């Protein structure tokens, strides 16, 4: 089976498992939407401030909780499953690509739900023409976040404090994504070009994709 065939097969099974486990829909997403409510309760802000900070809170929570989609328990593979894949001849780069594909689509769905929650709770004033750039920024952030989460999940595989350690690794490295995503919206609101931020996101995604594919074999050995 060729590279993309294997990647699509890995993604397909990832989706099937997530559909049965429901970790993203039943746990990560409600947790993130709850956090949307916690912010205003904790800060005691007036409505005009809420309207202003809504998109920023969306990006912050999106990245912090979105990384949990890539690090979800259902995505973690036991050593026996990794061995099985290795002996089936699964290309480690195809495995990375497949995990990134399934994780990206799940993360985009997560972001969409979170955006809806943010719009309801914060009633932000959205700039004209926001859907297209927002969708594009969201997709690019989702790709980068999934790539990072997959990489961090692999380097922390099997460790006792995996989730916390992987989150510590992902969070700072995800800052270009937070900046790129939020500044895209900000530039749109100021009627400025979003191109620099889109390029920043593209560059980050590309760098992580190259790292993920290029380091796939050492990663596979390291995670067993």
């Amino acid at each position, binding site marked *: *089976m060729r590279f993309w065939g*294997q990647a699509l*097969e*890995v993604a397909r*099974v990832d989706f*099937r*498992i997530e559909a*049965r*486990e429901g970790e993203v829909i039943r746990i990560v997403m409600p947790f993130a939407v709850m956090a949307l409510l916690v912010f205003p309760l904790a800060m005691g802000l007036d409505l005009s401030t809420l309207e202003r900070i809504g998109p920023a809170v969306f990006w912050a929570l999106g990245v912090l909780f979105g990384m949990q989609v890539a690090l979800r328990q*259902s995505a973690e593979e*036991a050593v*026996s*499953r990794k*061995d*099985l*894949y*290795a*002996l*089936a*001849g*699964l290309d480690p780069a195809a495995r990375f690509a497949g995990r990134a594909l399934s994780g990206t689509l799940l993360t985009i769905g997560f972001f969409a739900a979170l955006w809806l929650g943010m719009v309801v709770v914060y009633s932000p004033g959205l700039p004209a023409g926001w859907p297209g750039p927002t969708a594009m920024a969201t997709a690019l952030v989702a790709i980068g976040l999934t790539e990072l989460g997959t990489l961090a999940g692999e380097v922390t595989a099997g460790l006792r404090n995996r989730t916390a350690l992987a989150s510590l690794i992902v969070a700072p490295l995800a800052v270009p994504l937070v900046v790129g995503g939020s500044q895209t919206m900000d530039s749109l609101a100021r009627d400025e070009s979003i191109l620099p931020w889109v390029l920043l996101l593209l560059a980050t995604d590309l760098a992580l994709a190259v790292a993920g594919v290029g380091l796939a*074999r050492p990663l596979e*050995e390291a995670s*067993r």
Partner: protein
Amino acid sequence: MPISLNSVGFGLGGFTILSDVTVSVEPGEVIGVIGANGSGKTTLIRMMATLVSPREGSGMVLGARLGTGEVYPVRKRIGVISHLPAVIGQLTLEEHLRHVIRLAGLDTDRIPAALRAVGLDGAAERSGSASSFGMLRRTEVARLLISEPELLLLDEAFSGLDSEAGSLIDTLIARTLAREGAVVLVSHDRSHMQSASRVFSIGGGTLRTAP
């Protein structure tokens, strides 16, 4: 030669697991390895499966040097049954088989026959997590009946199996030998090694011919 290990050593977390192990396995041969718990049997199997690289010494499996990129193309020719079944719990037994067979680029049309052969055709829709140990083992046998490995590595494959399921392992061994393949059988119970032409014991990290 399917397997040739020369003075290989392996350690993890500051512990030596294998030390100066030298062994070779010829085509058409079954070798047995017996040893107590913690003696390094599983590590030896995983090294023969190219899943871990020796930290000392050198080895070749199916013509590929261990610890190099040469092992990637030969892995599909190796079949392993580990002491813990490797079946994805969130999938049904049939879905799991289909997934692994597809990844390996093999013919998924053979799956129904393989499930029937191991006696799981009536339970193929059971999820892995709801299946017994014996059922998971049979699923692994079904996978290997399709993949037809040249090198069969069995790590405590008979443990937890009734006599019917145990006979499936014997069938796997016989078919591998018929293909001029090689088999390595690891167990703590010598009674499973009647088909072995040579038996080794592993202890203190080293391999010796068993009396």
